[in-house]
């Protein structure tokens, strides 16, 4: 059997199993990014307002990013034990930097004159944030979430090592088989597809949220 034939054979035999792992994989990545967003967006807004903090927070985020994901996962496993929660927390840590950074940049990029105009028309600080700054920054923030999700889908693949399942477990099965290339592909191709699809969908949402609509000259 050549690899392609084996791949088809494996997928037809284990279609249900692959789908279950696909769903599980996606949920892990999505939860990780969701929790990261809950923490990071307010944090990003905060450091945009209080500039002094920004270098510290961004540096800390970058430091987390340099730790190998497998190592971080192993340490978190000591506290949280085996299973999906460990993976979700690891993903959350790795998603903090892209989201904080983009929130920070998005907030900083808002034209000062618009804020002043809002302020002059009697808006409170919270109103300014909600009605002026956030809507203008949202597409940049979404770009950060998009990056985080794509990275997260990749990292979730190593979650199999801590018993969390996901498509990584199919890849691991393949590395253990004699000629497991087909099984590895059966795990790796859906992972890549998921990342591409997530990227496309998030990109579409990002464009929808763009505050300044593109001019009529662009046909698309």
């Amino acid at each position, binding site marked *: 059997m050549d690899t392609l034939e084996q791949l088809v054979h494996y997928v037809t*035999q284990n279609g249900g199993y692959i789908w279950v792992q696909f769903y599980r994989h996606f949920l892990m990545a999505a939860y990780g990014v969701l929790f990261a967003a809950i923490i990071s967006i307010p944090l990003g807004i905060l450091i945009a307002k209080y500039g002094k903090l920004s270098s510290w927070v961004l540096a800390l985020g970058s430091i987390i990013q340099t730790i190998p994901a497998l190592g971080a996962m192993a340490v978190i496993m000591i506290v949280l034990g*085996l*299973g999906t929660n460990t993976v979700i927390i690891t993903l959350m840590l790795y998603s903090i930097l892209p989201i904080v950074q983009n929130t920070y940049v998005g907030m900083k990029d808002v034209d000062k004159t618009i804020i002043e105009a809002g302020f002059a028309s009697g808006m409170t600080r919270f109103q300014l944030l909600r009605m002026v700054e956030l809507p203008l920054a949202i597409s940049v923030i979404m770009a950060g979430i998009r990056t985080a999700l794509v990275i997260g889908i990749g990292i979730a693949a190593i979650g199999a*090592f801590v018993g969390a399942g996901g498509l990584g477990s199919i890849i691991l099965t393949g590395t253990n*088989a004699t000629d*497991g290339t087909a099984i590895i592909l059966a795990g790796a191709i859906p992972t890549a597809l998921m990342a591409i699809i997530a990227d496309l969908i998030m990109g579409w949402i990002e464009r929808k949220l763009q505050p300044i609509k593109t001019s009529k000259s662009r046909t698309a």
Partner: protein
Amino acid sequence: MLKKIVYKGIMIVLLLVALAGCSLPGLASTTKDTIKIGALATSESRIFAEILAIMIERETDASTELVTHLGSSIVQHQGMLRGDLDITSTRYTGTDLSGALGMDPVTDPEEALDIVTKEFQDQFNETWTAPYGFENSYSVAVTTEFAEEHNIETISDLEPFADELHFGVDNSWVNRKGDGYDGFQESYFSFGHVFPMNIGLVYQAAATGHMDAVLAYSSDGRIKEFDLKVLEDDQRFFPPYDASAVIDNKVLEKYPEIAAITERLHDQISTETMQELNYKADVQLMNPQKVAMEFLEANNFFEDMEKGEN
């Protein structure tokens, strides 16, 4: 400003605590009655986890959840201690003797089994079940053709040829203390040419004639695939790696039926049978669950069970 940071820190800690305590919708269906079965990334470990899961679901009212692809025996052990796992499907006497218990290797299989059974009961309140019957130990294999030609049955029979033989071994084995190549040379003899390589390659290397003898894992399905012959360890140099399940005593108290299940599996799977099951999963790419189901049906485990109930 500082207050906000402190507040945020507290929030993060709270979130972590909340997360550690519960599971998220869609991810885990862990209830109190779910028995969590841990397995390594190897096919044989998966197959036994599936066998146990199928039997437990049939015999008891508990549901099961598999936690597969755990990195090593130590991860399994830690998972059991933490309560993340209730059962681990395959544990090997030799591995846990030196790993979990931190003792010196013992070459007598029964003595090794006695020690782990007793120590796991005393130290960890876990039951080491009666062995399945197969072992996954280091062994020396040659092609069947070569063995028949020179009438070789034991490792000692290889000695007259040793100087000219090419010996393919697992990278990690060469420098292993105790049961590694240094120890092997003391008990047996030296091979003329030793080639350390990835364990996945040795079987094929032997089959294609690149290697004359290889260090293999005795229950590996590739031994069957490539028509290799495992030689008898006549000097009893390699420590035993008999496979058993390990079960948390709390689970056994709650579901005494599980003890009957593992008792029924005792000595039912020979090393040759395990090679066949591994072959199905590793080479024919069958799903471990299907392999487990086929095995149980073919060996009438369900029928016996129904007879027992009546």
